[in-house]
């Protein structure tokens, strides 16, 4: 494999892996802050138990999110240095803002939250939880603004062959980020909601102690999930309408629509190979005129097919790659403007399908557990556990679709933007040796694999431990070897005020 392929695999693996942790962190941190608020306001121990239990799972997951995020930031310079040079004037700004405005807040206040249970007044401690969780959302906004600029470059002039920022405001209010941000945040809440519902339902099924904790968690999770999935559908629809304008090829590829149709039908499902050149031979279940409606809001608009878009792209951006040794084998070769159809077609369907499955499972679980009921069958356990995975998969396929659907561009040309502000992925990679990229690809993937195993092991263990695992009964005081704290626990007092808050009690330990 050459550097381009290796670099793309590496970026794909690290991104998808990073984005398994991030949505859970975002969604769960706000829900945990909400639970803690409920505890502070009502003093009900049930909410304290919820805060501690879900908070612990949040922490296990957060550590992985942070360390994989560092890799993301470094990769732009390490593997995609030509890209970094080209877009640095624009792209670095939102990244730096994320660090300075959001990530500092996130990591500092998380530290205060973990260790501050007995050190801080209760309201100040609660404020730390909110600061942390709101910062995760701000973080997501800046990162998505950077990503959206690659999908739809705005706010720039072309000076000396490079985009030069002329309006940071345009970058931060890019129509693409305004659509992608709610969609991603709703996706994060869908993940957190399914996590809550699945695990809590499993505990209900096991007849674990603290039943009120699990019932409240199922309810909270389902309602958050319902809102999230409704939001996903609406924001997804907005996003795809935008995408038909901004990246017509991506949407045509998402439908494996080979030829222009008017009105265009929506493909629900395909049998056979959607890849070229024979995508016309695919038998698929279609809904007439629906695609036209999804794209423009009426049932008759013409939608351009992949094969009719290619000549348009060739005309605007060239039929062949320039002759340039940096392009390696691609130098002078014809440019393939069509993304990998099976990936885009199925990625799009799996994103929606897993999302719908997750929503359905959540509502089903809420209905099955209504009025204090709990199904006893083993199937319920599998339903509970299986429903956790679905939104994760939906998220991953969503990102695979959106990132691979823009190939061969890394910076996709903006149809109404400045000419020349776009970049082929093949031009973006560093002048590295394949050995370097392969080394880091293998090393990172191995480490990620091991750590994924560790994370699952720990989450499983803490899930099984239930409330008792994170909230031991308060025994003797908080002296040297008292049972009050715990390694691995944000253990604190019961429902009352902080206990053991003497001068000696420096920390309520997390490590």
């Amino acid at each position: 494999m050459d550097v381009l392929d290796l670099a793309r695999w590496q970026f794909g693996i690290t991104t998808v892996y990073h984005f398994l942790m991030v949505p859970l962190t975002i969604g769960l941190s706000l829900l945990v802050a909400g639970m803690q608020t409920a505890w502070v306001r009502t003093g009900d121990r049930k909410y304290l138990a919820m805060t501690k239990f879900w908070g612990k799972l949040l922490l296990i997951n957060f550590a992985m999110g942070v360390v994989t995020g560092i890799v993301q930031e470094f990769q732009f310079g390490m593997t995609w240095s030509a890209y970094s040079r080209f877009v640095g004037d624009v792209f670095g700004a939102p990244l730096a803002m994320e660090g300075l405005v959001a990530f500092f807040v996130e990591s500092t206040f998380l530290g205060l939250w973990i260790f501050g249970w007995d050190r801080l007044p209760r309201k100040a401690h609660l404020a730390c939880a909110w600061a942390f969780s709101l910062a995760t959302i701000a973080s997501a906004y800046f990162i998505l603004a950077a990503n959206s600029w690659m999908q739809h470059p705005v706010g720039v002039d072309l000076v000396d062959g490079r985009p030069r920022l002329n309006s940071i405001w345009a970058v931060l209010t890019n129509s693409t980020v305004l659509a992608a941000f709610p969609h991603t945040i709703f996706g994060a809440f869908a993940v957190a909601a399914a996590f809550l519902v699945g695990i809590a339902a499993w505990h209900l099924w096991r007849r674990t102690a603290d039943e009120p904790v699990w019932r409240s968690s199922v309810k909270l999770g389902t309602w958050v999930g319902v809102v999230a999935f409704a939001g996903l559908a609406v924001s997804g629809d907005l996003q795809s309408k935008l995408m038909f304008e901004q990246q017509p090829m991506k949407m045509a590829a998402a439908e494996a629509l080979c030829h222009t149709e008017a009105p265009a039908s929506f493909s629900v499902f395909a049998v056979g190979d959607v890849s070229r050149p024979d995508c016309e031979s695919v038998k698929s279940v279609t809904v007439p005129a629906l695609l036209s409606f999804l794209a423009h809001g009426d049932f008759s608009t013409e939608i351009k097919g992949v094969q009719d878009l290619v000549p348009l792209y060739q005309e605007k951006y060239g039929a062949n790659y320039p002759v340039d040794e940096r392009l390696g084998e691609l130098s002078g070769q014809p440019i393939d403007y069509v993304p990998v159809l099976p990936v885009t077609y199925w990625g799009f369907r799996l994103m929606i399908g897993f999302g719908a499955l997750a929503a359905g499972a959540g509502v089903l679980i809420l209905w099955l557990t209504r009025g204090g009921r709990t199904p006893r069958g083993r199937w319920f356990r599998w339903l509970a556990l299986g429903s956790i995975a679905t939104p994760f998969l939906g998220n991953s396929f969503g990102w695979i679709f959106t990132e691979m659907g823009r190939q061969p561009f890394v910076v996709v040309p903006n149809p109404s933007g400045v000419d020349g502000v776009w970049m082929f992925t093949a031009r973006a990679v560093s002048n590295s040796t394949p050995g370097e990229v392969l080394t880091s690809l293998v090393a990172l993937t191995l480490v990620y694999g091991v750590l994924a195993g560790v994370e699952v092991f720990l989450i499983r263990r803490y899930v099984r431990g239930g409330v008792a695992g994170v909230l031991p009964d308060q025994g003797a005081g908080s002296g040297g070897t008292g049972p009050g704290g715990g390694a691995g626990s944000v253990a604190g007092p019961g429902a009352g005020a902080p206990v053991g808050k003497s001068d000696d009690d420096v920390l309520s330990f997390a490590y």
Partner: protein
Amino acid sequence: METFWFCVIALLWLGYLFLEGFDFGVGMLLPVLGRDEAERRVLINTIGPVWDGNEVWLLVAAGATFAAFPGWYASLFSSAYLPLTLFLLALIGRGVAFEYRGKVDSARWRRVWDAVIVAGSWVAALGVGLVLSTNVFGLPLDAAGDRVGSPFAAFTLESLLGALAIAGYALVHGAVFLSLKTEGEVRERARALALRTAPFALFPLVVLLLLVQLRFGSVWTYAAAIGVALAAFGAFARLALRREGQAFALMGVAVAGTVVALFGALYPNVLPSTLDPAFTLTVENTASSPYTLTVMTWVAAFGTPAVLIYQGWTYWVFRKRIGTRHIPSVHVP
């Protein structure tokens, strides 16, 4: 404006070296100063609430370099590919290990994560030093800013010296920090270790600064380098008199002097080319547009004071010394 941003990036490095310097040091010293499980937990909990916030200084330094000097960021990161990969692996392991080591009550489990913390802290500290000094001494860059030659171009004698310099500094800095933040036996041991090892551990730093000054130095960077020596000596003297807080502050002065001496010697270059001075990257030829720098200046003007205030508050909240008597028993599911 470019010069201002060069100073901001130097400042971010200063924040990073000063803050993560001591948490690297604590990790490096874990098996030396922590004789039993309770003591090791004391050590880890001195940095528990803050190490993550410390690490963000690096992320912001890298992000700010990307935004303000994309050419610098692109050339340095792609040319120092292998050292940075090692560094990233170390940071990954270390970050996860702090969070995970206490999550299961098993001696074997803790031994594994302790080993990851120790190895991760050493490799990361060495890696920071290597990349920083490589940046000062330069890389074989061509006209396009790409590295010419092998992936091992960053592993030179000078950069290895830089690696030892920063790791040695982190070791001493960590020991001074521990003597300030702990009580009882750990405190005594940390202090003794700092005093015993400082002359050897700081030696590479002195040689590095001397070498940099001989090659690129100007009057004021010489002054900064001399300041480093004086501050380090002062820290040693204050620590010997059990004035740990002052010793720690003087270590801060020393690292500030180091950053001034290194970045001052670098300026107005940002990454020298060892092939041909014509290919050297400078603040001029790598900086972003004035508009981008203005935007970033506004963000930094509001963001930086806020960061300093709430991070300072964190240190204030957790200002007390920690000892084994504060360590509660292990409780895990």
